């Protein structure tokens, strides 16, 4: 379970998150929707502990992220998978090396075992044949797939975070990425947060939905609850998307 309690984040005098509360039940996928620059990605940074709130607290499985030391944070993140907007693959490494990186860093597996697991993960995302390719040789969709495989390398990731995983992709690739995210969630039963501004993709992957506007949470609920919301911003958001 991930819980944010009265979290406020500010860059100088600009308040990005204003006392927000959010709860993602274990094994569920929460999609955070809102305009660009509304503070969606900031929520992910708070959960990861790369950004500390001015006030409030972030809990991940009852562990208060803000109270962890640097070493504890590094250990905590080992059970977390994060897929960045553009993939953030290490461009000096091959696809295989990117996926193997976590295993090299945190396990004592032999090279053969690492390769076996890397091939299995790449097969899962449908890219086994690209194992020796460099990230610069891949399309946007392929990079996101590799990023998902890399995020899954952590054995049994408890949390998966996705930052705009389908932005800039064509509708077919977007759908395949969403299907993949669903498969990952079924496989690991992880607790997921997905940040996006695409409602179609949000419906494909989400169990719960949260709308953010002007640094505040304006609504949280299931698809039905969101669709029946009377909030003018949500109504406009839904109508523009459809």
């Amino acid at each position, binding site marked *: 379970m991930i819980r944010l309690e009265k979290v406020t984040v500010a860059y100088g005098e600009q308040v990005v998150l204003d006392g927000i509360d959010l709860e993602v039940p274990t094994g569920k996928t929460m999609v955070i929707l809102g305009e660009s620059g509304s503070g969606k990605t900031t929520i992910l940074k708070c959960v*990861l502990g*790369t950004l500390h709130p001015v006030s409030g607290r972030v809990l991940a499985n009852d562990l208060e992220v803000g109270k962890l030391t*640097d070493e504890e944070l*590094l*250990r*905590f*993140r*080992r059970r*977390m998978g*994060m897929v*960045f*907007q*553009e993939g*953030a*693959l*290490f*461009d000096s490494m091959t696809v295989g090396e990117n996926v193997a*990186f*976590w295993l090299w*860093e*945190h396990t004592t597996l032999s090279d053969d075992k690492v390769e076996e697991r890397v091939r299995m993960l790449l097969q899962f995302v449908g890219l086994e044949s690209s194992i020796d390719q460099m990230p610069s040789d891949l399309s946007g969709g392929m990079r996101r797939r590799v990023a998902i495989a*890399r995020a899954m390398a*952590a054995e049994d990731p408890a949390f998966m975070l996705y930052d705009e995983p389908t932005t800039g992709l064509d509708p077919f690739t977007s759908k395949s990425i969403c299907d993949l995210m669903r498969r990952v969630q079924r496989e690991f039963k992880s607790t997921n947060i997905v940040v996006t501004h695409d409602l179609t993709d949000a419906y494909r992957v989400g169990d719960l939905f949260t709308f953010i506007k002007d640094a505040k949470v304006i609504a949280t609920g299931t698809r039905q609850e969101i669709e029946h919301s009377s909030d003018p911003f949500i109504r406009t958001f839904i109508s523009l998307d459809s």
Partner: protein
Amino acid sequence: MPVRRALLFLAGVLMSVQDFTMMIVRSFRYLIFHFRMRESLFEMDRLGVGSIPIVFLANLFAGLDMALQFSVVMAPYGASNLLGRVVATSIIRDMGPVLASLVMSARVTAGITSELGMMATTQQIEALLVMGVDPVDRLIAPKILAGMVMLPALSVVGDLLGVLAGLMVAQLGAHVPAPLYWSGVRSALTLPNLVNGMLKPFVFGFILVAVGCFYGLRTTGGAQGVGRATTKAVVSAAIWILIANFMISKFLIDVWGWKL
């Protein structure tokens, strides 16, 4: 308003000093307690071996030029027999390490800053953190070690090349016999000179890598930001190398007095 701006500026400077200090302390902690042999050897090869041609070229021409200039100045006083000693002393104590560092800062500091800068702006540094790996451990500490090991090594060979280049000018231009030149070089190989010649590149190697890493990790603002950070890093490294050069010279002269 100006007071507030000055205070904000001061706070920014203090924060930068704190961040730099923390980065260095953590680097040394990782080098001691979590040493990465593979990455360190890789960086030594990349930073050090890759810089051999430019360092050698710089020292070669420095040796040639210094021997030429000194022979012109010393000949009227009949002091050409001291040419070997003067050339070797200047190269070992000052010119060798400073020149090698300045040339390397253009290559190494710029390379490190742009590499880390690109990683920072494309979220690769953040990806490392998220994967439970401290970028200081994986990226910075091996580079700092490589700088501190490889620059002294390159300096020693570069010094030798500079002295050999000086011999060429001494023989062909100033007509100083080779044995006389070499006996002057031998007399320059004193403890103060050798300590000078080894301590300086050790410190300069640290500076040019640490400055590059510091600016690289703090890069923001896409390709333009990378360019800005790289320029700042190269200029800062060069200035700090010159400041450190003076301070080490002064310190060692205070320790040993005016001995050569």
